[in-house]
């Protein structure tokens, strides 16, 4: 029994203790709950932080490696580019040097060639000298020719005068006008007179005929019938005598040319002949041919027309005189 009482008193105490502890636990429950909360949250946070920092570290590693990789690649590229640019600059500089030399050479040799210009100007002065000399010679020559011609004209005039004045020749009895006894020597005219051979004057009739022809010229070929003969009678002065051509003139008749002209033409155009280009029997042959052709094709119209056409080809050689004149 004692134990029971003890237990019963202990129960009271137990109850009190239990209640006390419950109430204490109740009180502490909130606090402990919050504390547990805090601890848990802190722990979770730490966990998460650890995880995040782990992730960050790994991400950093990856990024570091990647960035290093790309940067090195870029750097390599930059180095390549810089090297390339350096090479190009070098080449360009060298090219500039080459082009500088080449352009200087080219311009000095071909475009602004000092020596060519100098030699050109020297050559030009020499040519000018030459031309001046030649022109002076030419002028001299021409002048001499003209003087010569003048002199010849003068001389012929004097000789003609001498012919006209042949009667002034001095005779044994009577000294002529040009051979005055007071002169030391005879005048040149006198000497000319002595040299000139006397010629009987040509008959006046050819000259008269010439003036008649001149007057008849404008009244050529259209005399009105009624006034025919009296017109000639009133204007003609010496139409009574029959006029014969002079015997001594050696004029060639007809269309004959000087031998020199013919020779020149032959030399200048050797294929110019008076012979036909086609054969002598060309006409008959052509007619035979056509006859053979027209036996095969009986069309009557073409006959004479084309024959004439063929014939006209062979007459080319006769139109020479017109060309011959221009070859002279």
């Amino acid at each position, binding site marked *: 029994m004692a134990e029971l009482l003890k237990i019963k008193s202990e129960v009271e105490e137990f109850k009190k203790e239990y209640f006390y502890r419950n109430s204490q636990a109740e009180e502490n429950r909130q606090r402990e709950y919050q504390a547990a909360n805090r601890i848990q949250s802190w722990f979770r946070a730490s966990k998460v932080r650890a995880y995040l920092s782990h992730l960050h570290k790994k991400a950093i590693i990856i990024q570091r490696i990647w960035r290093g990789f790309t940067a090195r690649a870029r750097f390599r590229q930059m180095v390549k580019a810089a090297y390339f640019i350096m090479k190009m600059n070098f080449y360009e500089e060298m090219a500039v040097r080459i082009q500088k030399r080449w352009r200087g050479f080219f311009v000095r040799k071909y475009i602004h060639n000092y020596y060519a210009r100098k030699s050109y100007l020297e050559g*030009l002065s020499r040519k000018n000298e030459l031309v001046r000399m030649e022109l002076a010679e030419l002028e001299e020559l021409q002048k001499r020719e003209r003087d010569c011609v003048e002199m010849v004209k003068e001389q012929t005039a004097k000789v003609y005068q001498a012919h006209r004045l042949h009667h002034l020749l001095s005779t044994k009895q009577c000294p002529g006008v040009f051979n005055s006894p007071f002169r030391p020597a005879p005048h040149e005219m006198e000497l000319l007179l002595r040299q000139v051979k006397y010629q009987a004057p040509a008959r006046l009739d050819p000259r008269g005929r010439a003036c008649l022809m001149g007057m008849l010229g404008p009244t050529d070929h*259209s005399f009105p019938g009624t006034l025919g003969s009296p017109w000639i009678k009133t204007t003609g002065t010496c139409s009574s005598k029959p006029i014969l051509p002079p015997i001594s003139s050696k004029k060639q008749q007809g269309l004959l040319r000087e031998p020199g002209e013919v020779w020149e033409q032959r030399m200048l155009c050797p294929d110019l002949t008076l012979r036909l280009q086609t054969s002598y029997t060309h006409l008959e042959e052509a007619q035979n041919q056509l006859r053979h052709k027209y036996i095969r094709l009986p069309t009557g119209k073409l006959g004479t027309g084309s024959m004439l056409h063929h014939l006209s080809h062979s007459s080319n050689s006769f139109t020479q005189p017109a060309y011959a004149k221009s070859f002279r």
Partner: protein
Amino acid sequence: MSQRQIIQVFEQYQKSRFQFVQTVADLALRPQNIEILQNAGVMSLLRPLMLDVVPSIQQTAALALGRLADHSDDLAEAVVKEDILPQLVQSLASQNRFYKKAAAFVLRSVAKHSPELSQAVVACGGVDALVLCLEEFDPGVKEAAAWALGYIARHNASLSQSVVDAGAVPLLVLCLLEPEMALKRIAASTLSDISKHTPELSQTVVDVGAIAHLAQMILNPDAKLKRQVFSALSQISKHSVSLAEMVIEADIFPAAVACLKDPDDYVRKNVTTLMREVVKHTPELSQVIVNCGGMAAVIDYLGECRGNLRLPGIMMLGYVAAHSENLAMAVILSKGVPQLALCLSEEHEHHIKAATAWSIGQIGHHTPEHAKAVATSDLLTKLLELYMDASSSEDLQAKSKKALKSILQKCTYLPGLEPLLYDVPSNILKYVVCQFSKVLPNDSKARRLFVTSGGLKKVQEIDAEPGSSLQEHINAINSCFPEEIVRYYSPGYSEVLLERLENYQPA
């Protein structure tokens, strides 16, 4: 009355008509009779005689009419007004060669006075009739017809066009090939008149192959023919580069230079004109002529002739020098500049002087070498004189000013520039001073010479607005010399010194 007596009356009348016409024709040869004949009413009397039955009277009447119309343009107008032209033209087709000659002569004397009269001749079908005459055999008829066509074509381009449209050009070229010298001359002269107006007309003439024939006649001994041939070639070549090239391709050039020594003045003038017309187009053409020695020949020619004959030669030198500095140096080497100086001093006509000034400007404006060549012949002072002379024409003044300016801008020959410091208008002075300011900083001998010859003194005396380019150049010159020298030469320095003397108190 018997038949014979009646016929005698007619004979008498015919004789008197013939005598009248013959006398009028002879009187019309002298200019002093023309007035009297005109007042006596000769036109209306001659007109019915041109329709006379007897051919000789017709022909002599036409001849008389032609001579009358030749002398004065009132009579020519009277011929047109009296409607004589249409019947002349009609009878041209049908009559004999003497009548054709006389009728062509009348047409020519009417057409030569003025374009309106030529137009009247064209309007009544004269051109076609004349072209028909060109196909005749008689050379006299061809000559008269070609001459008339030439006078018609001379006036203006439309009349030339009507001549060409009538088909005259091939016939004229055929006339060139005829042996008669007078006909060749006239044909060449007509071709020259036709081709002088426009490039198209020249092209028409060239297309017929005229150039080759004209080129063959260059060395013909007849002087008048050569005149016309060269005139024709120069009229053809003046229009365009291609025509000039065609003329050159006909190989006339070394041979034509020989004609510059021909005794006839106008042959030489026409050769020089031809050269000028060819040279003015391109440098290559000028090169051709320079290379065959044409330059030297022309310069000698300039030395020998006087007056207006010199003008084409002077212009040719100017055109050649204008193309490039090579050619200008060629002109200088061929002794062109002394010759031009002679021309400038000897000639009195203003247009020739203006052309000479222009040529000198073209020669001198390329490089300092050229300017030196011009300056050594003392031409700068002459050009200045021409510019300053109040009696020079405007054209002459303008050209000499331009030449002077362009030469001065390149001139570094100081002894030539020095005379130009004195008595010169300011617009020229600034160029002179500019040149000095360019040369003096670099050349010590020149500086010494400048001081001793009094140039520095003159420069100090120049009065220029501050800030103008003239003042800048003067400053540039002054900076080439030490202060003391500049002060010594500045105007009024002696007064300044005397003033200092007066204010000086001996210590």
